[in-house]
């Protein structure tokens, strides 16, 4: 029984392994088990796709890199700018 459970992980275990696989390379035998499971399981295949999509969205998030001017987030308020300017000037004197 235990070797069977080992060979056929549950969706719960697979969901954790799919996350782990995004952070480091899994051992080959674990990868194989994940792959076999995905072949058979639509719910986990969808989940895998959604995690991958989420990652590529976050990595291409327009607001992530400051170099890209973003319309998605506002900038500093005038009040904050004034406060920061005063703090900078007083630290100089």
């Amino acid at each position: 029984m235990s070797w069977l459970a080992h060979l056929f992980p549950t969706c719960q275990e697979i969901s954790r392994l799919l996350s782990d696989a995004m952070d480091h390379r899994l051992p080959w035998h674990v990868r194989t088990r994940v792959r076999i499971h995905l072949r058979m399981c639509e719910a986990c295949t969808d989940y895998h796709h959604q995690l991958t999509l989420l990652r590529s969205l976050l990595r291409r998030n327009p607001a992530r890199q400051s170099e890209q001017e973003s319309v998605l987030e506002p900038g500093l308020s005038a009040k904050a700018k004034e406060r920061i300017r005063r703090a900078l000037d007083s630290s100089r004197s």
Partner: protein
Amino acid sequence: MRLNFLRESFGDMGDVTGFDSQRWIDEHGDALYRFALVRVRDANAAEDLVQETFLAALQGARRESGETAERRWMIGIIKHKIIDHFRRMAREPLREGHQADLPVVDEDFLADGHWKPEFAAIHGWPDKPDELLERKQFWDTLAVCFDKLPPRTAQVFTLREMDELDTGEICRLLCVTQTNLGVMLHRARKQLRNCLSARYFGQAEEDASL
């Protein structure tokens, strides 16, 4: 020696002619603020981080010339300030109503390890990310979902997915174990996926409450 002397006097001259705080704020303020805001998700904290960054830059031994180099230099400073901010937050006691970072049970699954029906067949996600990138409503929803994550979980997820730090680095910076980090990242991904499915991709009943 002579070069040092020259550099010092040149630096001093710069000081005498007046360091222009307004220029820094105009050129880099908004960009630094957005950089911090998308990571710390708190406007006040982000403003403070910009100020701390400028103050640290003032102390900086070397001032690079050119707007791009200057910006890169300041982004480097604010990254460290953000991690300091995360560390400070970790020392604060949990506010009431916050979830603990390490879940006791995984509530998406049945006892036999299968997905609960409501989490099993989630459709409506697109095949490709492109169409979502410029959609403000999507990012707003993501922000709402993000704010529901436990604080430390949100921090490690930010460092992993936005700054693309590897797990060893995150463990070192925030003093968490690899095991706990794995649990938190797994949970962040799952919760964000569930929340986006419910609130943006038009699944579940949660939609009605919006």
